[in-house]
């Protein structure tokens, strides 16, 4: 294992990359690929023989399926995302949650993991309280959310750090390596919402502040090559240890780690 194992892994990664996709940055109106066999997906449309980008991002061609993945801009919810938001309204059968997207998310009473008295819904979730929810469905009119699984629920204690939604893949790291490293070093519980909100909860405020500093550092240096080493150094400078977790080799020219 050790250095040799890492090297093997990198080679394997780069090989799969070549096989699955050619990545290029495209601009709206630019032809991504020509040919009738290609199917336009998210962020692309067909114009005659060509598949054209209709937003700015990285073109991703996978088995004739063309997608454009955004690299900047606001957060667009996707099914299955974990998001962190605050209660902005209480209706007769659920809560409206602001998560920084175009529309609010709706959390029905039925999607909450416990019995809630409909006359006293504010007892469970009141205005201004924060929650971790799962995006259940995305419609053009809004987002339906659920809380019924492990890891989701009301946020009590800790702190929420706001970073951009486009920095989230770097904070998570390849296969969650970066967030594991933060957890291991600071002993804090770190939950990353895909909408760019990070919840940090630890035994004491010092640990939480340390974790927050690391998260903010990653967000500020999201495009830097060799970020893992820099974060390791930062953790060392704080007098913390990274040894508890095995860090998987990270491919740094990857922009999104989906």
């Amino acid at each position, binding site marked *: 294992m050790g250095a040799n194992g890492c090297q093997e892994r990198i080679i394997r990664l780069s090989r799969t990359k070549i096989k699955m996709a050619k990545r290029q940055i495209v601009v709206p109106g630019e032809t991504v690929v020509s040919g009738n066999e290609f199917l336009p997906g998210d962020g692309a449309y067909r114009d005659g023989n060509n598949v054209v980008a209709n937003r700015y991002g990285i073109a991703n061609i996978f088995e004739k399926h063309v997608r454009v993945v955004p690299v900047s801009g606001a957060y667009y919810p996707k099914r299955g995302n974990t998001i962190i938001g605050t209660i902005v309204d209480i209706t007769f059968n659920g809560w409206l949650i602001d998560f920084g997207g*175009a529309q609010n998310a709706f959390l029905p009473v039925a999607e909450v993991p416990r019995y809630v008295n409909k006359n006293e819904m504010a007892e469970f979730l009141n205005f201004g309280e924060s929650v971790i929810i799962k995006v259940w469905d995305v419609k053009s009119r809004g987002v339906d959310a659920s809380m019924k699984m492990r890891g989701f629920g009301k946020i009590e204690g800790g702190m929420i750090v706001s970073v951009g939604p*486009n920095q989230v893949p770097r904070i998570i790291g390849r296969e969650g390596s970066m967030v594991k490293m933060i957890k291991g070093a600071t002993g804090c519980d770190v939950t990353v919402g895909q909408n760019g909100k990070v919840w940090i909860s630890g035994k004491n405020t010092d640990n939480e502040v340390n974790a927050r500093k690391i998260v903010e550092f990653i967000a500020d240096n999201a495009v830097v090559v060799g970020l893992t080493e820099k974060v390791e150094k930062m953790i060392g400078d704080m007098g913390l240890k990274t040894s508890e977790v095995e860090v998987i080799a990270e491919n740094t020219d990857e922009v999104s780690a989906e």
Partner: protein
Amino acid sequence: MVEGLYKKREDGRKFTDVRPMKAKVGIVPSADGSASFETGKTKAIAVVRGPRTLHPQHMQNAQTGILRVSYGMMPFSVEDRIRPGPNRRAEEIGKVTEWALSSVVDLSGFPNTVVDVFVQIPQADAGTRVAGINAAALALAHAGIPMKEMVSAIGVGKIDKTLVVDLDKYEDSLYHDGEGSTDIPIVLTSRTKEIALLQLDGKISVDEFKEVIELGKVACDDILKVQMDALKNAGDSTNG
């Protein structure tokens, strides 16, 4: 070309040359999208926020999101101070920018929302509305807003009897000899090459007008290249 009084440009450009351009995206990290665009001494910055829920509610459209553009020149953008705040000219330019961009932006996926575009001119030397449109198109793309294609804009005109591309302040408003100066802002879409905005300030014959549009189309290709470069090289330094 017809023999006219205007034989040479002050800055040594050819009549069909565009001023040196510079474009950059991600200049305002806290916004959803942002860009700056410069031609010569004219500088425009654009910031995009949204899509976000539109208030007041009666302005919402249940079928599509709407685009809202505001344009403004900063008080120090010209030699005399400009009184800050909205005025007739700023409102009009904001509105025509909105119309030009609406033809490429597709907000049907975000009903009841608004995408706000703020265009500001920190330094003006004629052609501010076209610089503003170029910056706004970049900022919209940078914000990840769905767009069928990009738009590029250029001011073309006529000085006395000579057709010129990308007028500066002197040519646009200080030249009065002979037939004076005519200014025609053109906005061209990048893929279908359709005209998204066409305005005319001055006098021009039909034949010359046709020629002006051809000159504008050629210039817009140059501008599109600068815009594409700005977007494609954005990852190196910014990630707003």
